[in-house]
């Protein structure tokens, strides 16, 4: 056989496998409004950058007549490619092949590319679209999941891991995305749950649709399992590309720097925040008034909106933002917002991204439900994450910073490197109304006109303590600054802390209040 014929044979073999589950299955996939695994990889990666591995892998299952079945690529596509020139490892489950079910060789392909990404120190992207374990392969399939989870954990904090849910992802399979850093979902396509609607109906008698149980909206608004929500696969891929542009390849490198740009003139930080601490505003406008080109990339926009997290650039470099949002629940810390902030802080810290914290909160959300859901241990995560973080921590107190909330939001006491406060800042144990009621209880009670006395005492307290100068007098605040100076001073802070190094006590690992 000559070389030409051998090459022809290769072409033929490739052609057969590239069709995945065949024309009919591909049609079915399209009818569900979904792209095929291959189309997804092509749309996400830079043109012509995809290099596929393990195209000719075959399964080894022998039971249940499986030996007679051909499953092209064993239902998953793996390889390397680039996004805006940044290298990534990628796998995409192919629903057209046996419903994307995970058998032993399927899992081995995934773990191969995972090992590769950890070795090459490049981000891993996993596109999930699978019916779950391949039941015919029994415990080998379970072993496969376990091997994936183990690698997710091993890679955590070394390389960024991104999960894209573009189909069903149910049962044990959901735990791989849950272990990764960012989860993307698409309206009507993504479905994630541990036990499906059928089981819930038989066991508990509760009737619920897949969409209401674990659809894209549920995970981006109620559970917080998803970080990014898109209306279409195309929009989702744009979001992934944008995220990849903000994060570094691994925990040794810094994120790629861009051309520095001034914020847009329509976002004037001095005109956004009302002086009265009881009045709301959108803190995202303040962030947009600080970051390059007013380009703020928000994460988990629709979940726990009382805290805002996301990336922006300053002087071209990636910065992580954590900000209380007075527009929602007055910006309080609660169970969900604590979880949201803490995890993001740890991501930034692991990947050398400086953290800017904008503070304006009245404290923690009161309520039996919060207490019983464990706001103590959830709230503790924020303290832990900030204290542990060794990247540059820059704090700007915009307005109120009361009580435990003040301490938690990257205060000096948790080793913030720079603490700025606007003249509107109120750093105190609690709001003037609450404090006056306690401190002057006797005077108020005994006064002829208790209401008048209360008002007077609140006023007195406000004048004396509702300002940044008491904290500044102790050095808890480094400088009281004008809102217009914020960007300039943050840029300075980033510049001078570039070579920051701190030594933490040696340990195997800490024990955060998970």
């Amino acid at each position, binding site marked *: 056989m000559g070389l030409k014929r051998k090459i022809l044979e290769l072409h033929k073999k490739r052609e057969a496998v590239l069709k995945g589950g065949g024309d009919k299955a591909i049609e079915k996939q399209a009818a569900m409004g979904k792209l095929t695994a291959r189309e997804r990889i092509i749309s996400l990666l830079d043109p012509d950058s995809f290099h596929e591995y393990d195209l000719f892998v075959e399964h080894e299952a022998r039971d249940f007549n499986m030996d007679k079945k051909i499953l092209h690529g064993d239902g998953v596509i793996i390889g390397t490619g680039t996004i805006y020139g940044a290298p990534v490892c990628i796998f995409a489950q192919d629903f057209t092949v046996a419903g994307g079910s995970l058998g032993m060789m399927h899992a081995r392909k995934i773990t191969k590319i995972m090992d590769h990404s950890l070795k090459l120190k490049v981000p891993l992207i996993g596109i999930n679209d699978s019916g779950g374990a391949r039941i015919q392969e029994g415990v080998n399939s379970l072993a496969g999941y376990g091997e994936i989870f183990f690698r997710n954990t091993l890679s955590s904090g070394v390389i960024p891991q991104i999960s894209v849910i573009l189909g069903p992802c149910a049962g044990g399979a959901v735990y791989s995305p849950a272990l990764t850093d960012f989860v993307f979902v698409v309206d009507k396509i993504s479905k994630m749950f541990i036990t499906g609607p059928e089981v819930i109906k038989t066991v508990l008698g509760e009737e619920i649709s897949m969409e209401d149980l674990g659809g894209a909206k549920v995970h981006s*608004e109620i559970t917080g399992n998803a970080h990014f929500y898109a209306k279409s696969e195309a929009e989702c891929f744009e979001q992934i590309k944008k995220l990849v542009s903000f994060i570094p390849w691994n925990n040794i490198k810094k994120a790629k720097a861009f051309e520095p740009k001034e914020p847009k003139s329509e976002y004037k930080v001095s005109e956004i925040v009302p002086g009265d601490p009881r009045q709301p505003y959108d803190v995202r*406008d303040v962030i947009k008034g600080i970051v390059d080109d007013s380009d703020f990339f928000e994460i988990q926009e629709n979940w726990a909106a009382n805290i805002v997290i996301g990336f922006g650039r300053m002087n071209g470099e990636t910065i992580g933002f954590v900000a209380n949002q007075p527009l929602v629940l007055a910006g309080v810390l609660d169970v969900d917002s604590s979880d949201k902030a803490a995890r993001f802080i740890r991501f930034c810290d692991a990947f050398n991204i400086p953290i800017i914290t904008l503070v304006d909160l009245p404290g923690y959300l009161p309520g039996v439900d919060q207490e019983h859901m464990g706001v103590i241990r959830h709230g503790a995560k924020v303290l832990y994450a900030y204290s542990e973080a060794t990247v540059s921590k820059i704090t700007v107190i915009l307005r109120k910073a009361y009580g435990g909330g003040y301490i938690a939001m990257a205060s000096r006491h948790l080793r913030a490197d720079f603490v700025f406060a606007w003249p509107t800042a109120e750093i105190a144990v609690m709001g003037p109304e609450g404090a006056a009621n306690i401190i002057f209880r006797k005077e108020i009670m005994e006064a002829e006109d208790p209401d008048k006395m209360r008002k007077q005492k609140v006023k007195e307290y406000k004048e004396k303590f509702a300002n940044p100068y008491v904290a500044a007098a102790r050095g808890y605040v480094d400088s009281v600054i004008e809102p217009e100076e914020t960007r300039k001073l943050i840029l300075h802070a980033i510049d001078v802390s570039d070579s920051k190094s701190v030594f933490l006590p040696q340990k195997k690992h800490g024990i955060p209040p998970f």
Partner: protein
Amino acid sequence: MKKNDCEGKKKRCRSLLIEGTKYKTYLNKKYENRKFWKKKDEKKIFTFIPGTVVKLYVKKGQLVKKGEPLLLLEAMKMRNIITSPAEGKIRKLKVKEGGKLKKDHLMAELE
């Protein structure tokens, strides 16, 4: 001062009281749908899971001790012995052998 969307027609800000101060802000769905806490009535015994009554050990009007088995409830392929949370006379008994019960169904009430 920049107008925020608090004055929007679609959604209005509400006030949230925290330590004596009223803040103007949006509330979120989770907050609005939160369950109000009520003290548990020890004399009322509810199902905590849907299931089938396999066996009934007591009758209406019977005096039971704390921890005494009341009935056997099969749920999730497990047979759960439901015991009395307190001592007392059974005032109401709203279950039958073989009956299927939903979650939060009042099974019995003590006097």
